[in-house]
Structure formats: C-alpha cells, structure tokens
C-alpha cells in the first residue's frame, strides 16, 4: 500500500500551516498542493480530482464553511476535513452537518492527523470500491438472461419490471424447467434490494426438521449434531429476497412457522431464546396445483393468500416455440464460449428438430440438449440434427392431449409443409387467411 495515488489539497490563509502540512504530506508520499484562500482553492479543485481537502474555517473572504458548500457542489466525493484554531462544539457540529468528514483543532497532534488521514483514505477507497461493485451488480442484473421475443415472454418481462419496483410477495407458477428461479432472480435484480443477497431454498429438497434448521438457523447444541451455531437462511436474506422454490412441498408445521415469520418479520433460531428481526421480500415458486392442495387442506389457506399476492404464470416452452431459436442460439453462444468450441451455428435442419420437439423439461431440457450437442459435435462448426439427442424423442413425443396443443402442432406442420405459403396453408386447413394469421400469432409460430 502506498499514498502516491492520493491527492490532498490544503487550504489555509496562514503560510506556516500550508507549508508545514505540505511538507508533512509530501514526506508521507501524498500528492499535495496548497491554496491560501477559497477562490484559489476552487480554481485548483476544478482543475483536477482531489481525494481530501483540509480547509481552515477562519479565512478572509470566503470562509471554510462557505468553501465547503462550494466544494460539495463541485465534487461530492471529496473528503473534507475542517481545521480550526477556535474549536467549538458549534463549529464542529455545523461542519459535520454540512458533510465534513471530521475536524481538527490547531495545533494538531501528529498522531491524530496521521490516523485521521489514513482512515479518510480508507473510507474513500471503500466508497470507490462500493460504487464499482454496485456498477458491476447493475451490469450483471441488466444482463437479460430471460431470452425470448414472443408476446408471452415480452409480457413476463413487463410484469417483472412492474412488480420488481414494489415489495409485494410474488408467486411464480410454471412447469418444471420453465425458469422460475431465473424470474425470481430478475425480480430481485431489478428491485431496490438488489445490493443485498437473494437466498434460494428448495423446499422439496429437505425433510421438515432439516428445513426448519436451514431456515431459522440454530444455536450450538440445539439438537444432536448441532456442533456449531449456524445462521439460518432467513437471517442471511436480511435486506434482500428469499426465494422459496417448490413451496407446495412444505409440511403443515413449517407452513405455520413460515406464516408467523411472514406476518411478524421475526423468528427465533432453534435452541435460542433471542428473537431476531428480519426484513426480506418473499418470492415463491411452485409447479404444483396449490389451489387443489388448499381445497384438500394440504396447504394452509392463510399462507396461500399471503404468498399469492402477485401471481406470475410462466408459459411452457412448447407454448412459445417462436422463442426456441433465440434461446437455443443463446445457449450455443454461452456454452461454446465456456467450452472453448468454435461452433457458431445450428443448422436449419437441427433447428427444425428443436422447434418440433415438445420440450416436456422446458428450457432446462433445451439447455442440456445444446450443452450435450456441443460435446458431441466434434470438429464441425455447427450443430446438426444427429448431434441432438431428440430425433427419436421428437417422434416419440407427440403434442399434448389438449385440443390447443394438437391444433398448434397441426397448424405448424401444414405451414412447414407448404413452405409457409399462407394462402395454400389456409386452403389446406379450410380456414380463411385472417384466422390463420390469428392462429400463428396465438401460438407464437415462427418460420
């Protein structure tokens, strides 16, 4: 560590003070300059960035307090230290209220000055580091991991933007693999809580007793095997968001405990008698039929209403086939980079297989398919149908049993058969062109 990158401006009308502080800071390795009045100081401040300004409070013309106000307008990040020969509580309080970092009374104890400057430099570094990290967090949050241009996904993105700004509890519904956790992360990443963590907990992965200790944490000796005190996820999420995946899988007792935490924002770790206050936003996700569980008394109705403040339904991939090429290319680029492969494209034939497939595992399955294809693609520069593990599956997975799914697959097949000739397709389907256009739009079909 050295001080060479740190710049200090000393503003004092007394030559001896300027001179001695100049020499002191110079010998400490700081970049230092002096100004004998407010006007000269402002001129020097405008010429370049300064980290610290030591400002005498009593100066002819513009006094230190006035100069401080001007400095804060020029650069609010400068650390201001007021020097005064007439240290009174009033002047110190006033200076601090105006945003001064600290004040020194003349004569200064060298040790105190040394510590003060060191702390100020550290504070400045931490602030700069904090700003950089926040920018990085913002950049990462802005990286739109939710890929797609279909009307359905555009609508989801709009809803995310709207709901992120509120602190409302969000329930994300959707089949397995549709990207519920990604949506939860996007909501958190665009919320005011984004600089705090989002803690995920898969409720389906823990037996009830273990889930309780995961959530609430425990004191040392709280139960057999609790050798150390451990913070629970509720506490870890303080200030941020808590994402409950598979919320439908939690037991009745846990539902009751969770409801209490949501209502009071307080909990007691296992084996402790201390109540811990927490502040977090809840985002829950499920692919189970919670309404049926409520009706069958498997899920508490009051908890259901607490969690279901804002409900967001993510469509399965087969309902937004228009997004498949975009998502497939997104994963291709991502995994080709991480695997250091020169695979740049997916052949039209392979893409056709991807579009025709039913994707019961949704985006997760598509991601795994592309990742696997990149492993088996060999030296080729694009993915071909034989690289996909879907050829037989595509045939083995006909559209679902609903009329809509069968209709969508049929319309798509006729369109491809006629090379997307709308008139010919409409003729084959025995519908008018407008109806066909409506169906293409409805099912998000794409050439």
């Amino acid at each position, binding site marked *: 560590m050295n001080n060479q990158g740190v710049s200090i401006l000393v503003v004092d009308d007394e030559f001896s003070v300027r001179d001695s502080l100049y020499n002191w800071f110079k*010998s*400490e390795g700081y970049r230092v300059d002096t100004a004998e009045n407010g006007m000269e100081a402002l001129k020097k401040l405008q010429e370049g960035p300064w980290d610290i300004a030591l400002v005498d409070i009593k100066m002819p013309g513009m006094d230190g307090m006035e100069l401080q106000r001007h400095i804060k307008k020029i650069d609010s990040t400068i650390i201001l230290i007021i020097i005064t020969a007439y240290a009174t509580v009033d002047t110190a309080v006033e200076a601090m209220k105006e945003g001064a970092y600290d004040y020194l009374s003349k*004569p*200064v*104890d060298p040790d105190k000055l*040394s510590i003060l400057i060191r702390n100020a430099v550290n504070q400045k570094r931490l602030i700069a580091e904090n700003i950089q990290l926040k920018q990085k967090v913002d950049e990462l949050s802005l990286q739109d991991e939710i890929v797609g241009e279909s009307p359905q996904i555009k609508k989801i993105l709009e809803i995310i933007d709207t709901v992120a700004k509120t602190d409302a509890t969000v329930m994300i519904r959707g089949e397995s693999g549709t990207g519920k956790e990604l949506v939860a992360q996007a909501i958190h990443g665009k919320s005011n809580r984004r600089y705090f963590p989002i803690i995920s907990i898969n409720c389906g992965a823990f037996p009830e007793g273990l889930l309780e200790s995961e959530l609430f944490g425990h004191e040392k000796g709280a139960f057999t095997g609790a050798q150390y005190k451990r913070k629970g996820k509720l506490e870890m999420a303080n200030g941020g968001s808590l994402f409950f995946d598979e919320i439908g899988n939690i037991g009745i007792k846990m539902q009751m405990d969770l409801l209490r935490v949501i209502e009071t924002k307080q909990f007691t770790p296992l084996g402790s008698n201390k109540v811990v206050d927490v502040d977090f936003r809840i985002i829950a996700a499920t692919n189970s039929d919670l309404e049926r569980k409520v009706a069958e008394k498997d899920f508490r109705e009051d908890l259901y209403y607490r969690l279901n403040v804002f409900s967001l339904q993510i469509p399965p991939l087969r309902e937004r086939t228009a997004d498949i090429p975009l998502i497939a290319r997104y994963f291709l680029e991502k995994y080709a980079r991480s695997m250091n492969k020169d695979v740049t494209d997916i052949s039209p034939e392979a893409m056709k297989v991807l579009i025709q497939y039913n994707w019961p595992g949704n985006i997760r399955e598509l991601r795994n398919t592309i990742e696997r294809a990149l492993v088996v693609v060999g030296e080729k520069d694009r993915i071909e149908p034989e690289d996909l593990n879907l050829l037989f599956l595509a045939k083995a997975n006909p559209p679902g049993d609903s009329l809509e799914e069968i209709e969508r697959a049929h319309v798509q097949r006729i369109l491809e058969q006629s090379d997307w000739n709308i008139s010919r397709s409409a003729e084959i389907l025995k519908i008018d062109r407008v109806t066909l256009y409506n169906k293409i739009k409805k099912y998000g079909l794409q050439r």
Partner: protein
Amino acid sequence: MPYIDIIPIGEIDETLLLFLKQSLFQTFNIQTRIRNRRFNLSPVYDPVRNQYNSSGLLLELINDTPPETLRILGVTDLDVFIPIFTFLFGEAQLNGVGALVSSHRLHNQFYGIPENKELLKDRLLKEGIHELGHTFGLIHCFSLNCVMKSSTYVEEIDQKSTHFCRSCNQQILNWQDGKKLDMVRNGSQEKS
C-alpha cells in the same frame, strides 16, 4: 571531502553525539563530524507553547553552511514544534541540506517512566537517520522495519529498525552513485 555535520543545539550529552557520529558514518558511508555553533534561540521560542519553532531552527541551522558540508543534522533536547502540530520528533528539508532531531520526547522520563539511556540512544539514532533520509529524497516508507517508516509516537520508533529497507537503501545508493558521477564530470571539466 564531503561531511555530514552534527550540530548540537543547546546542552547535549557528548557521548550521544559521538555515538551518532560513528553510527551515521556506518549508515551513510559519508564522513561525519561534530561542529559546534552558537545559536540565538530567542527568535524561535514560543512563550505561549513553551516550545521552539522547528522550522526556524532548521533555517538557522543551514545558515552559513561550509562548502564541504553535504548534510547537516541538528541535535537538540529542546521541545520543538511547527505551528500546525503539537510537537515534532524532528524535521528535515526533503532533498535539502538540513535536518533536525529533538530528543526531548525520546526520553522515557518524559512519559513518567524510568530513564533508559540505551533506548534513548537507539531512538535518537533512528530519528537522526530518518530525518537525514528525507534530505536524500526519501519519503515515508510502509515497510514496518524500515527506518523511514513514519513514527508519531515513541513506541512506533521502538518498533522499527535502524536500517533502510531494500528499496530505500537502493535510493540512497542511487543518490550516492549520482553524486560520484557528478564529481567525475566536474573533475573532467576542470581538467579540460
């Protein structure tokens, strides 16, 4: 022959001065000598603070510097200050001729504990080398052991060594090499 002049200001124990003379020669590899001078201290005395202005003393110290003097180290037992600070252990001109060191606050007695002459010698030497180091262009060093580490209280002086770290030592050597080169150049110019 260039010298580092050690000039006592006020009453200084001669054994301390001789110790400094020998030790500073070993550190800088430059001849050292003790040069006595009379000082008028009244202009630098501040009756309100009951202290002596270090910068004023330093200016007085470099007044009438003999041509063979390369550096001056003033040694005093007076309590010295500069207006902005409550006290100083010493002061020096960065890349200049003069340096000053005060033993006033280096005595254990100052802090109400029994005097320790060996510790005083050690502290005085460290601060003497430190201040002279500034005159050779060295700034404060972050190496914990280096004599150029800044010390604002005696315990910090006790923690550091009497030696320069490798980097500071290299700067002293570079300075000496540059000086030798200048002497060779000046000598050849004189011959021509």
